[in-house]
């Protein structure tokens, strides 16, 4: 077993100038065969492997990552975590995740800095108010903490918001989920990787999947840049690249991959200590522990696999930021980047078997996948291990696009990060 992380281990290692820390995870070559192969070394993929090993005793498994772990959307998102979704299915899924978040640092013995500083969603027009109140009522009955705040309460909770009635789209109120918050994205990937590796999971980086070997209606293995790997179960968690893998197995998914942009400001002393989201004017902001304002912009309207988006998306978001926070006008954008998000027509994910035996997909998280990482991994692991969905992800099957039984979160604009 690895050395446990704690203040004591830090002190101990300080005496040896930190020369004796062990590797956080090994750097193995792929074996000939595994009981399962997870395609994609992001948070969701690593979590899947972690729970396969931990809860389903599947330890002879591998995670193959074409680049470096946590380098995709896990390391590129604005780390908002909440579970105040409208539909029962979504609420169940995301709150399952939130409950795991609450004990994750201890479960992984890795500080993922889950910070329950609350997430506020603002309403700017009468329909916003209806939609958000509808969500609040649904949340309450689903046992999810969510309260409606009037404009004054919004101002009280986050004083720097411009709640003047004279602005173009005044704040008419908002919802608050106090259990919601943010976490340290890299730590999530690294913590799961370290935990999975400790249980024997092989994490294989710089190993790109080039093909899915099928024998009729069941899978036989994956072709990778590090050779063929035999396996009976393949769990694809490739986010923006899900369709690329799907095309290898020639199945089509209801996905479009689009660039989603985000940016951070230069670090400043604490100025906003919660997360504020506004779908109507499209502004999302929080402040990282380092002091940077972390701002989420929108997606472009076209398919693109370049991790660059259009400038007008960033301009549009900062416009909204200054409308709500005019005090930030002299703050400076330090870094801007893009990720590739795979979006379903109903803005809800797919955690599902396919008609091909042993081929499973976990995708379609769109702009909001990070918050679901632990739940997604747990439920996908269950689905792979039992070849049956857990009741919490049963509704997120691929077949819903045929039957029409969508989990349409557009209604309550849960497309937000």
């Amino acid at each position, binding site marked *: 077993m690895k050395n446990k992380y704690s203040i004591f281990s830090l002190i101990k290692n300080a005496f040896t100038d930190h020369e004796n820390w062990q590797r956080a995870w090994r750097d193995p070559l792929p074996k000939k065969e595994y009981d399962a192969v997870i395609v994609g070394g992001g948070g969701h993929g690593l979590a899947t492997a972690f729970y396969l090993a931990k809860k389903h005793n599947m330890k002879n498994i591998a995670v193959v990552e074409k680049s470096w772990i946590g380098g995709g959307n896990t390391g590129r998102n604005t780390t908002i975590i909440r579970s105040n979704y409208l539909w029962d299915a979504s609420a169940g899924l995301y709150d399952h995740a939130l409950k795991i978040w609450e004990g994750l640092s201890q479960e992984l013995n890795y500080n993922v800095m889950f910070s329950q500083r609350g997430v506020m969603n603002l309403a700017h027009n009468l329909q916003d108010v209806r939609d958000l109140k509808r969500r609040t009522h649904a949340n309450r009955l689903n046992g999810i903490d969510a309260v409606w705040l009037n404009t004054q309460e919004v101002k009280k909770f986050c004083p720097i918001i411009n709640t003047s009635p004279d602005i173009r789209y005044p704040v008419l109120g908002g919802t608050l989920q106090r259990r919601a918050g943010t976490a340290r994205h890299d730590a999530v990937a690294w913590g799961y990787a370290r935990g999975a590796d400790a249980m024997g999971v092989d994490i294989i980086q710089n190993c790109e999947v080039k093909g899915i070997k099928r024998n009729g209606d069941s899978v036989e293995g994956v072709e990778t840049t590090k050779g063929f790997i035999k396996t009976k179960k393949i769990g694809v968690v490739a986010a923006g690249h899900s369709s690329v893998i799907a095309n290898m197995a020639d199945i089509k998914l209801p996905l*479009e991959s689009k660039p989603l942009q985000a940016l951070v400001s230069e670090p400043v002393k604490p100025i906003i200590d919660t997360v504020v989201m506004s779908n109507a004017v499209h502004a999302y902001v929080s402040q990282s522990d380092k002091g940077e304002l972390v701002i989420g912009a929108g997606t472009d309207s076209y*398919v*693109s696999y370049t991790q*660059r988006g259009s400038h007008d998306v960033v301009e549009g978001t900062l416009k909204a930021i200054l409308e709500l926070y005019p005090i930030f006008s002299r703050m400076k954008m330090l870094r801007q980047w893009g990720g590739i998000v795979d979006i379903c027509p109903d803005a809800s994910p797919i955690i599902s078997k396919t008609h091909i035996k042993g081929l499973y997909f976990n995708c379609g998280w769109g702009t909001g996948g990070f918050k679901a990482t632990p739940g997604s991994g747990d439920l996908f692991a269950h689905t792979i291990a039992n070849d049956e969905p857990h009741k919490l992800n049963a509704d997120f099957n691929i077949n819903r696009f045929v039957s029409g039984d969508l989990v349409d979160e557009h209604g309550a604009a849960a497309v937000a990060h």
Partner: protein
Amino acid sequence: MFLINCPYCGERDQSEFTAGGEAHIVRPKQPTELSDDQWAEFLFMRKNIKGVQLERWNHAHGCRKWFNMVRDTSNDKIHAVYKMGEKPPIK
């Protein structure tokens, strides 16, 4: 911001255009004849290609004409544009 060569108006900034997704997904002439699966295929299923893709664009803030584009989604390079009803030029 792309610089898009509208087949009618010439080179214009991307902000004058809207994207319309994958091209050449023809609306079935007889929808009622289709199975739920076939209809879902038309409605939702997409190739979502990484690489050269044929897609629909609309010069929404110019001549308001729809046209097709050959674009490499892996680097956003536009290879060609062509009018509705025309065959895609050889990639």
